[in-house]
């Protein structure tokens, strides 16, 4: 595999920027030529995957479109119809498939998502407040001067500051962002545990086509993609989900059940998630967190579940085991290699220190994004089969203990042994810890495609 053409791929796709601040602007596009003019003016500002030889910039800009947005950009009908059906429909129409019902149903989403007014996502990441504001002001100026787009909403997000320190924690207190997959051709240094498991126990990068359109995927074919190939190449699909976190409910639950569980509150939290709050994988260290593992890139994502079929180390239903089961279903992980997703995003809302007063109706959660080549085979499968359902893990209809969409009443079993220090423990009456507030499916085009879209030269032939 030769190197990828990084200048043709949007930077957001190739790397998590690790900037502390972000503003995701949601745009409504003009229903005429001005939408293309806006895009044309925007192009020079868009951050590509090109290597940063002079160090990190102060801010980055990336753009993605819903199917409605592509229509407003006047893509030819033959191209519009060639997109996969789930993208064509959008996330709201897929709510039954995704289990986004009840308290996660579209009726309860924020109005911009419910009314499907979002045509484009304009993501700005920045090193400082000043850089963020100045970059966003530039974007607004382009929108105003061309009249091609207007902001119908935005989401500010920021790395959480805990004790004055920037962290990679999320609101429940867990260090987040481990374990994005490696892909062939990516410059990023490979970490054992991040690609696919090989028969000899080593790890190899996934085929590029599991993330990027226009490259062979793990099945040895090109991903389903729109025509012409210039529109598709170096692009990918993005899921945006605003996930509200009920921090008060989570803390209350841990307090209450932590008093009943022999291992105590912190071990209970670790068993629910599959990582201790500092990030230590429970599979590697089931009895206590171990900072040495967290710091060690050769170890912090390098584990399998094949020798823990009983779940007595990492419970079978734990969040990380459900969403990335590795070899848990046997076959050296081959049942999971085509269900991998790349995650992006940052928390929103202020961090509530442990012990501080906190309410569930406070604005707090994570602006969560998924990148994948095939929404149905990757994101939707993980969401439907592994988060909202459990048959692959022999858990029947049980849901992910953390992300599962439920009114109070779910259950989660911590498998244990006959050793009184590690007994089986049933977590009953699980409340809904996370709620969906809206989102949609987006297409992140490559740079060539953006140029063609801005000039109205997409030719489906």
């Amino acid at each position, binding site marked *: 595999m030769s190197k990828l053409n990084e200048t043709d791929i949007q930077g957001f796709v190739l790397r998590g920027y690790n900037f502390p601040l972000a503003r995701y602007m949601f745009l409504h596009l003009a229903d005429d030529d001005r939408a293309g003019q806006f895009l044309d003016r925007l192009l020079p500002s868009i951050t590509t995957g090109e290597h940063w030889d002079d160090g990190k910039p102060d801010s980055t800009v990336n753009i993605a479109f819903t199917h409605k947005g592509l229509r407003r950009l006047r893509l030819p009908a033959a191209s519009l119809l060639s997109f996969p059906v789930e993208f064509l429909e959008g996330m709201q129409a897929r709510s039954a498939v995704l289990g986004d019902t009840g308290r996660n149903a579209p009726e309860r989403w924020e109005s911009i998502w419910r009314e499907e007014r979002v045509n484009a996502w304009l993501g700005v990441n920045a090193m400082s407040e000043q850089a963020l504001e100045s970059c966003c002001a530039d974007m607004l100026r382009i929108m105003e001067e061309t009249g091609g787009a207007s902001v119908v909403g935005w989401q500010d997000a920021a790395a959480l500051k805990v004790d004055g320190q920037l962290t990679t924690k999320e609101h429940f207190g867990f260090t987040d962002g481990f374990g994005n997959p490696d892909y062939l051709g990516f410059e990023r240094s490979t970490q054992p545990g991040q690609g696919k498991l090989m028969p000899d126990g080593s790890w190899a990068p996934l085929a590029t086509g599991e993330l990027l359109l226009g490259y062979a995927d793990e099945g*040895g074919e090109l991903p389903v993609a729109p025509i012409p190939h210039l529109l598709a190449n170096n692009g990918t699909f993005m899921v945006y989900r605003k996930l509200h976190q009920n921090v008060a409910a989570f803390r209350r639950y841990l307090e209450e059940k932590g008093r009943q569980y022999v291992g105590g509150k912190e071990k209970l939290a670790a068993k629910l998630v599959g990582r201790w709050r500092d990030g230590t994988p429970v599979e590697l260290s089931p009895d206590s967190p171990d900072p040495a593992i967290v710091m060690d890139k050769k170890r912090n994502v390098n584990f399998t579940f094949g020798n823990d079929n009983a779940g007595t180390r990492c419970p079978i239903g734990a969040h990380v085991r459900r969403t990335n089961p590795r070899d848990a279903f046997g076959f050296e992980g081959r049942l999971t290699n*085509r269900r991998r997703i790349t995650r992006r995003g940052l928390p929103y809302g202020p961090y509530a220190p442990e012990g501080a007063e906190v309410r569930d109706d406070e604005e707090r959660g994570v602006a969560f994004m998924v990148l994948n080549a095939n929404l149905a085979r990757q994101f939707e499968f993980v969401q*439907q089969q592994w988060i909202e359902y459990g048959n692959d893990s022999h858990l029947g*209809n049980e849901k992910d203990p953390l992300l599962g969409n439920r009114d109070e009443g779910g259950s989660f079993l911590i498998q244990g042994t006959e050793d009184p220090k590690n007994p089986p423990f049933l977590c009953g009456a699980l409340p809904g810890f996370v709620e969906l507030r809206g989102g949609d499916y987006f297409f992140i085009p490559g740079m060539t495609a953006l140029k063609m879209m801005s000039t109205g030269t997409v030719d489906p032939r």
Partner: protein
Amino acid sequence: MTNITGKTYAMNAITPMKPWKTWILRGFFFLLGHIKPLQADLVNLSFIHFARWVVIRRDSFPRLSAAQPAEDLQYDYLLFFSNFNGTWNQYIDAFSAVLGKGLNLVWFWSEKYPGAVPVTPFKQYIARVQFETDFYYTAYPHATTNDVKAAHRVQQALDTLADGSGNTSPAEFEQAYVRFLVSVQRDLGSTGLAPIGV
């Protein structure tokens, strides 16, 4: 007419084979039937209830009465019949990812079989040779085979616990109970509605 009932999907497919190839396939089936490890991958896909391939010779199709016109078939046929939990796509994806080589040995002799990998032509092939289920019944529409098997194990373990606890002290019972719980702790999932197929 439906291929789905509750959490179960029934797949029927029938593919034509040139008669001289049928003998090769029969030889392979003979080996597969007698060498258990060869079946391991199929058995280990836990969402599959069963899968069966049957050769139907061209002269063994039923002729119900003399009034039914006699047929002169040029091909033997391979009937594939399988019940599984989950969606059609999930099933074929798993087949292609895990059982590709074995499937190729079975279906290679059928006309126009494209191979199990890559999966898109394989799916197109299955869709083309699949025929629909006329009648379908399931006793437990809210359960998968995993659930049913688990329920049997829990019942059996519970009966054993009950039988053995007539004269035990509270401390002995506690021990026996923990042992019971540990023995069934992978079998305590719940039942309910199936996810929607995509």
